[in-house]
């Protein structure tokens, strides 16, 4: 049976695009091969590693198991869309640099996209919730602590808790100067 193609209209990183895709093509393939957005990594291709994570209509998805044709009418963001017009890093990207949350870097774009969703949610996640929210991503280098710290600090800064962000120690635990009073 011959291949079937469709035209997909969507917004990628703020730009409207129109793309002809094979109906069985994954969104990862469309973004990488057709649009040259190579921050979207092809890792496991079974939706386990999170390296291909992109934001679709405000929520994180594994683009490797998401069909490109499903993107019709959707608003998609990849890591390339987070940087400023002059290539300036966004705060979450900068936090990954500052906290040394990168080694080989393969998992980093996916982690940052999920982190971006977290820090822009306006919600204050507990440490446990934050770890669970990041659990769809695998990193074989860093041991996760630096990533966790980068996300936690950025989340606190987004919530206006700048001083609290500075109290996050190397293990990602917020160290208050005095014991917290019992409630």
């Amino acid at each position, binding site marked *: 049976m011959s291949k079937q193609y469709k035209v997909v209209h969507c917004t990628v990183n703020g730009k409207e695009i129109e793309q002809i895709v094979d109906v069985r093509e994954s969104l990862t393939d469309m973004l990488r091969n057709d649009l040259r957005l190579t921050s979207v990594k092809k890792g496991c291709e079974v939706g386990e590693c999170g390296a291909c994570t992109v934001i679709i209509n405000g*929520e*994180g998805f594994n683009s490797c198991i*998401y069909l490109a044709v499903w993107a019709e009418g959707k608003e998609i963001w990849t890591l390339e869309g987070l940087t400023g017009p002059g290539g300036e890093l966004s705060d979450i990207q900068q936090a990954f640099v500052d906290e040394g949350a990168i080694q080989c870097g393969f998992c980093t774009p996916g982690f940052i996209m999920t982190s971006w969703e977290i820090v822009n949610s306006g919600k204050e996640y507990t440490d446990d919730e934050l770890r669970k929210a990041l659990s*769809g*991503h695998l990193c074989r280098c860093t041991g996760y602590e630096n990533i966790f710290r980068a996300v936690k600090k950025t989340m606190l800064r987004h919530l206006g808790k700048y001083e609290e962000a500075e109290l996050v120690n190397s293990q990602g635990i917020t160290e208050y100067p005095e014991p917290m009073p019992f409630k």
Partner: protein
Amino acid sequence: MASQLLMAKSPEEAISAKTAQAAFLAGGTEVNRLGSSVDAETLISLKKCSGLDGIESDAGYVTIGSMCTFQQLIESDKVPAYIREAAHFMASRTKRNMATIGGNIASMRRDSYMIPALIAAGAVLELAGSGGSCRIGIEEYLDKAAEYAGCLILSVTVPEKIKLMSKRYSNTAQSHAVLTMSAAVCGDGIVMAAALKNSGIYRLMDFEKALKADPEMSDDDIISWFRNWDAIRVEADMFGGEDYKRYLMGVTACDFRAGLASGSGKEVES
């Protein structure tokens, strides 16, 4: 690998397109993954199907549309806590945004996140096929898989208030589970179900009967019962040996019995 894709706009359109060479495509976590076991010439995408993603609560039961994602289940106050817990077994949020309850049932994976809890809860499925629609228990659906292969799952109905416990064992949150097991209080007995990797999905009716016949069974007796249970074939594989898997079922059954007796099952109040 499929070469054709049909974006069905309604369940009726999806059903009319279903042939032996076609397969339904729900969230895509199973069908779209590398090495998927689904082999079809045409995929019928249900993403644009209307009316399959509602969650309704009525007269002590919750009806969940088959296209509800695991994340929707977790975020809904109407969904019973035991279903939310089973949805949480899928650790990745990005994957939970895609995986659907209907897809998880229909794929019948032996490490299913959801099916043991649904069996223990006595879930009822609403199916639609070329011959019309019907409502059947999930056990019947699994038992007669070939008969219902052409049917589309429209919804899943589960009781709101039931005391139910689930456990999932895997090396990491992301790994395939070696065992997912659930048990619920039903009348004066316990209903138990297990999804055992590389073995199958079972309603543990033999054990339920044994426990009913001897409610005072000791934990050692329960563990030994599972060790000697010959109605199922337990494969030794990279997830563990046969003894290990049988022992795991035994100790989990002990935990469930104790937990349900002490009232630690997930009831609906949330």
